[in-house]
C-alpha cells in the first residue's frame, strides 16, 4: 500500500506536467479553465498523498484548502468571469504551436538538470518529482510570455502558482501552515483584483488583447 502511494505521487506529478503542456497549446478559453481545474485536483491529491505518507496532519488541511480554492472557488469565479466577459467560446490564435512545444521540451530538460542536484539533497518522500515541479513552473512561465489574451495570462499566472506549491510539497513535504495560508490569501486577493482589472481593460480598450497595452514605451 505504501509503495503504491509513493508511486501515486509520481503519477500526480506526471499529470501536472502533461496538463502544463496541454495548457500551452490550448486555444479555447473554456478548455483552459477545465485544464486549470484538473491541475488543482492533481495538486490537492498529491498534497493529500504526501500528507498521508509522512503522517503530517497539517498537509491534510493544506490539501483541503487547495481543493476548496483551486478546484471549487477559483474555477467557479473563472467561469463567472468568462461568462460575464463573454469570452467563454473564444478561440485564441496561437503563434506557431509546434515551436512552442519544442521550446517546452527544452525547458523540461533544463529543469530536470537543474533539479537533480537539489533533489539528491532533499529528504522528502516526493523528491524525485522536484524536476517535474520546476518544469511545470517554467512551462507556465512560457505560456505567460506567449499568450496575448489577458484571460490566458491570468490562468498561466495561477498555474505557475500551482506548480510552485507542488514544488514546495515535493521538496520539503510542505511549507509551514502560516505561510501556506498567507499564500492562499494572496492568490485569492490577486485573482479578485485581476478579475476587476479585466473588466476595466475591456471597458477601456474594447478588447482583452494585451497587445493594446503597449503604448507606454521608453521615450
Amino acid at each position: 500500500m505504501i509503495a503504491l502511494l509513493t508511486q501515486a505521487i509520481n503519477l500526480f506529478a506526471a499529470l501536472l506536467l502533461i496538463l502544463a503542456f496541454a495548457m500551452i497549446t490550448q486555444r479555447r478559453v473554456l478548455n483552459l479553465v477545465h485544464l486549470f481545474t484538473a491541475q488543482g485536483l492533481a495538486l490537492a491529491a498529491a498534497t493529500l498523498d504526501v500528507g498521508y505518507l509522512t503522517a503530517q496532519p497539517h498537509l491534510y488541511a493544506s490539501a483541503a484548502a487547495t481543493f476548496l480554492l483551486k478546484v471549487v472557488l477559483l474555477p467557479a469565479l473563472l467561469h463567472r468571469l468568462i461568462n460575464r466577459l463573454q469570452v467563454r467560446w473564444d478561440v485564441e490564435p496561437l503563434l506557431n504551436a509546434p515551436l512552442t512545444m519544442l521550446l517546452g521540451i527544452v525547458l523540461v530538460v533544463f529543469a530536470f538538470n537543474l533539479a537533480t542536484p537539489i533533489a539528491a539533497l532533499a529528504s522528502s518522500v516526493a523528491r524525485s518529482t522536484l524536476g517535474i515541479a520546476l518544469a511545470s513552473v517554467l512551462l507556465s512561465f512560457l505560456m505567460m510570455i506567449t499568450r496575448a489574451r489577458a484571460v490566458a495570462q491570468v490562468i498561466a499566472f495561477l498555474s505557475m502558482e500551482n506548480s510552485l506549491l507542488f514544488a514546495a510539497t515535493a521538496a520539503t513535504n510542505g511549507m509551514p501552515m502560516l505561510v501556506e495560508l498567507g499564500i492562499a490569501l494572496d492568490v485569492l486577493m490577486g485573482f479578485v483584483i485581476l478579475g476587476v482589472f479585466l473588466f476595466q481593460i475591456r471597458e477601456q480598450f474594447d478588447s482583452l488583447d494585451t497587445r493594446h497595452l503597449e503604448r507606454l514605451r521608453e521615450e
Partner: protein
Amino acid sequence: MNMFASATAELPLTVLLASPFAGALLLALIGHSRIGAAINVLASAVAAGCSLWLAAIIARDGASTAYGELFFVDPLNVFLVALTAFVGFTTSIFSRPYMRIEVEHGRMTAPRMRLYHAMYQLFLAMMLVALTTNSLGVLWVAMEAATLCTVLLVSIYRTPAALEAGWKYFILCGVAVLQALFGTVLLYLAADRVIGSGAGALLWTHLDAVKTELEPTIMSLAFVFLLLGYGTKAGLVPVHHWLPDAHAEGPTPISAVLSGLLLNVAVYAILRCKVLAEGALGNGLPGRAMVAFGLLSVLLAAFLLHRQRDIKRMFAYSSIEHMGLITFAFGLGGPIANFGGLLHMTMHSLTKSAIFFAVGHAAQKAGTQAMDQIRGLLQISPTVGWGLMIGSLAIVGMPPFGVFASEFVILTSAMRQLPWAAPLLLLALAVAFAAIVARVQPMVFGETAAMKRLPHPPALVPVFTHLGLGLALGLYIPPFLISWYMRAASLIGG
C-alpha cells in the same frame, strides 16, 4: 533565543502594526467622507510615533523578538521602520490637499477616494509587517500583499495608460514574487536539513544562527531566485520595466511612497537573504551578484534619464539609479560600504519623496506631466519652484546635502574595494547630474507658461521638512545616529 528581551518591545510594535490596519478598516467604510484624509493622517501619525518609541526601546535594550519569535526587531530593521512610518506620515499630510485637488479636477470620485485611503493604510501596514516579521515566509506574503495594494493604487485613475501601467506592474511583479516564493521554498529546504521542518525553519533568527551549516548548492540557487524576485520589486535593471510606468501613471503620493519606501523594503528583503547566503556559501558570490546588478542599474538608468519627457518618469529612472547604487554598496559589503548603503537609503527616501511632493503640485499647476510644457514655476509659485530645484540639486548629489555624504562614502569604499567600478559610478553620476539639472532648470526658471491656480493651497511643509532633514544630516550626523548605523551595518556583515 532567550538573550532577547521581549516584553518591552511588544506594546509599541502592536500599536505600530494595529494602527494602519485599523485605519485601513475604518477608511474602507468612510474613506470618501470629509474626514477620510484626516483619519489617514492620524493613523499614519500614530504609526510614526510608535516607530520612534520602538526605536528608542531597541536603542536602549538591543535586538528583541516579540509574539513568540514571530516578530523580530533589531537596529537594522527598526531604522527602516522609523523611516517608513515617518515618510508614510508626511506623505499622508501631502496627500490631503493633493487628492482634494484631484477630486476637483474630476480625476477622483468618492468610491475611488475610499479605495485610495484604505489601500494607502493597508500598504503601509504590509510594509511594516514585512520589515518587522521574523519569518521569511511571512515576509514574502507581506511583500506580495503590498504589491497587490499598490497595483490598485497605481491604476486608480482608470485611464488607458493607468490600466496599462497597473497590468504591467501586476504581471511583472507577480512573476517576480513567484520567483521569490520559489527561492523561499529552496531556503526552507536548506533549513529543513539543519533545523528540521516546522515553522521554526523559516525564522530568520534561527536561520542566522545556523547559516554556516546550510547546504551551499541549495542556498546559491535559492539566492539567485530571491535576488531576481525581490530585485524586480527594487527596480533593478534588467527587471525594472514596471517601475517608470507605475510611478508616472499613479497618483503622486503613491509615486512618493513607492520610490521612498517600497523599494527600500525590497532591498531590505534582499539584504536579509544575502546575510544567510553569504554565511552558507562563504565565497562572496552573493555580494558579487549584487554588485553586478547594482552597477548595471546605475549605468543604464543614468543614460535613460536623458531620454525622458515625462517629469515623473524621469525621477522614476533616478530612483532606479539610486537603488542600483544602494545594491552596489551592500554588494561590496564591509562596515564602511554597508554604512554608506544604509545612509543612502535614508537620504534617497527623504529627498526623493520631497521631490515627488513638489513635482505633484507642479504637474497639477501645469495640467500636464510633460516637462517641455512646465515652465517658469518660480514666478507662479516660488515655494513649489524652489522645492523642486533644491530637491533636484540634493538628489544629484550636490554638497552639502545628505545624498552627497552617502554617495561620497560609497564611492570611497568602491575605490578601495573595487577600483575599476569607481570611474563607472562617477561617470553615471555625472550623466545623471547633467540630465536632471538640464531638465529641471528651465522648468523652474524659464519663461512662464499659462498655469492654473490650484483650488486648494498645496501642503509644502513635508517638502521642506524632508529637504531640511536631508540638509541637516548632510552637514552633521549626530554621534548616536552614526553608532546606530554602524551597528546596523555590522548586522549585514560581509
